């Protein structure tokens, strides 16, 4: 086991298997010693950052170079607002000229995202759902995620909220919340007729819910809106979405026919699946937005 064994002796003992431990030990210990090196290297970056003038100058320089390259690209691009630009091709034309006939929506954007390119939009509502689940996982209070200081702070907030110090603000918010929610519902229901749709309307409803919760305290909100309601509404809406789209993708791809009646363009009950889908998206978004707010403030819905 001396250090100065020849290579062949060590190989032989390695094959025999009797001195593996010593060699492995040596290996590990040399590697242990080397391990400090990358840490010191990483510190130099921090030292660079602490030297703030140099660091700032470097940041600005990199930004300027990046922007210069990108501006060079922009110079080449088609002119802004040019009707002959390549983006105004047959794809957009069909959306505009046959959109009403094929989707029934007079808001061409709604027709495009909820019918022609509905797969993207399906992915998009899933992103939202994943985000609210991720935030739930992060902020919902469990045994790995509690601290006494935070409890105390929240108790103080509650006392502060229950005082009537912001009476005018609270009364105002109470009056305003229903109006905001109503406007949101209008935007959702008219998604296929006017600007807006599930997403924007849903965020407006969500903002209304946040206002209501801020004015009346989360306790009152919890009487009718808990985490259970949130997940149930979201899951039900997404499942409806999933079902509707599976139906139309399946029938469309297999040329089955059985199309959904489109109704009279311009009427509120028209354009096939677009209205129910807008309602689903709107509900999911409203729940999500309120869920974010509640989890951020209290760590629970």
């Amino acid at each position, binding site marked *: 086991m001396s250090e100065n064994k020849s290579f062949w002796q060590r190989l032989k003992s390695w094959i025999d298997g009797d001195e593996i*431990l010593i*060699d*492995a030990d040596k*290996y*590990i210990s040399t*590697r*242990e010693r*080397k*391990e400090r*090196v*990358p840490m010191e290297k990483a510190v130099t970056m921090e030292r660079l950052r602490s030297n703030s003038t140099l660091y700032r100058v470097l940041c600005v320089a990199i930004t300027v170079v990046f922007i210069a*390259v990108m501006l*060079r*690209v922009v110079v*080449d*691009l*088609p002119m802004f607002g040019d009707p002959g*630009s*390549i*983006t*105004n*091709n*047959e*794809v957009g034309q*069909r*959306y505009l000229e046959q959109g009403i006939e*094929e989707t029934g929506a007079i808001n061409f954007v709604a027709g495009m995202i909820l*019918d*022609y*390119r*509905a*797969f*993207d939009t*399906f*992915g*998009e509502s*899933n*992103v939202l759902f*994943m*985000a609210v*689940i*991720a935030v*739930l*996982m992060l902020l*919902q209070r*469990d*045994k*790995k995620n509690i601290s006494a200081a935070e409890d105390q702070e929240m108790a103080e907030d509650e006392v502060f909220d229950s005082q009537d110090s912001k009476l005018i603000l609270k009364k105002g918010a109470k009056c305003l919340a229903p109006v905001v929610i109503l406007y949101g519902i209008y935007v959702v229901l008219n998604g296929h007729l006017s600007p807006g749709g599930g997403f924007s309307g849903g965020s407006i409803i969500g903002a209304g819910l946040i206002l209501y919760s801020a004015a009346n305290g989360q306790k009152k909100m919890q009487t009718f809106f808990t985490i259970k309601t949130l*997940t*149930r509404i*979201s*899951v039900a809406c997404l499942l409806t979405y*999933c079902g509707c789209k599976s139906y*139309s*993708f*399946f029938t*469309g*791809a297999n*040329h089955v026919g059985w*199309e959904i009646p489109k109704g009279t363009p311009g009427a509120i009950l028209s354009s096939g699946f677009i209205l129910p889908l807008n309602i689903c998206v709107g509900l999911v978004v409203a729940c999500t937005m309120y869920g974010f707010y509640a989890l951020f403030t209290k760590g629970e819905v």
Partner: protein
Amino acid sequence: MEHHLNLVHNIPFFSIFFAMFCGIITPLIKNGRTARRLHGFMVLLIGALSVVLLVNVTQNGEAYTFMMGHFPAPWGNELRVGPLEALLAVLVSVVMFLTITGGSDIIFKEIVPEKQNLYFIMLNATFGAMLAMTYTNDIFTGYVFIEILTIASCTLILAKGTKQAIVGTTHYLVFGCMGSGLFLLGVCILYGITGQLLFPQIKEGVAALMATGNYHFALMIVVSLMFVGLGIKSALFPFHSALPTAYGSTMTTSSGILSGLVLKAYIILAIKLTFEVFTVQTLVELKIADVMFVLGVFGMVMGSVYAVRESRMKRMLAYSSVAQIGYIFMGIGLGSVAGMLAACFHVFAHAVTKSMLFVCCGAFIEDANGKEQLENLKGAAHRNPLAGIAFTVGALSMIGVPLFAGFISKLYFATAALEMTGLRLVLVLAALAISMILNAMYFLPSVIAIWTRPKEDGEGASKRAQTSPTFALAMVLFIVVNLVLGIGYRPIIDVMKQGIELIQMTL
């Protein structure tokens, strides 16, 4: 292209929607075990269906597009299915199933019970998003599912709930956001100069631009933006710094999924873009291939150098992933079909091997009561022989010993390099040799360490840890899959070749 579709052709669409459906419905299941069963059933079903699809498309030698909705190509979304895509779907299902089967004990141990079902939502979403990225024929759909994958994979990292895991997630998320931001900017400029979003139409547009020479600089920047974006997301060498922090801080099961599959999903998208949008020739003409080649070679060497310096096993495996991603980008950067083939095979070999290594590493750390320094893992293989054997197999495969998967991909890289001349040939062969030596330098000591009985507490250390039957099953299957890739690789290569040919035919 009017195709008569039968039920088998609906499998890709069904797979994506069923995976997302299971993800959506899981919050209603409060019990983590039930959620795990649903997940396992879903992956098995989709895996089986993908095998059926694979057999069907290879026998008929066909590739088809599947309309997502009532509207054909430039107007509606589409999926594209060919032998290569079906094979990738099978790979994703197999690796997902085996990793979760082998690593589910750790999931139930590390995550608080009320949040276990949330973890499986994220797993289902990850699976669905990876399938969608494999099958998609639309660049914007690709972007949306990249974002789903970003959020879902970050949640897989933070699920452990410790503060280190949160730091790791933040680091990973910042890099992920940079990557997807650059990718999105690339997509936007590409839309601005071709006016299309579906792969075949963009391909026509790009071909026209290359022929006329218009927007040459813009096209170069677009391609670099998109590949740098995907490179950042798949931890290509200079952008890898988030990887060790993230993998070092989280559960090995999550690391196995992330390293084995999620990184590969971005690479799959990069390979699809190379074949179906830009073509290999365009990449070579725009000099992007050279850049990828150089970064890949650097990654191969530097990743291994970092790994040699590392004494914690999880971080060592993370750096090893950086090196292996370097191999894949080097293969793409060779700018030849043979190079792409080698890169594709390496995606398979690395996915299978690295997830196995992470699952074994998890079992070792578990037996050592959570300590992950290499010295604490001494004798780990005696406590858990099956994991020890699997780890050894994985290490040998990583080094590139014949009979195992890693050898075949290195063989194909070398073959692809022999088509090249001059500097490239030398560089590839040198990088392969150096990287193999470095791989041996960090994998062999860990193998030796885990098979070494510690002297001081000779009896306590050799005590057998209890292994669940599911873990044993997963290990055996992992080893079998590795050997299948290492010995019976011919049919797989043939399917890949067929897939690549079919993609190139449909210009």
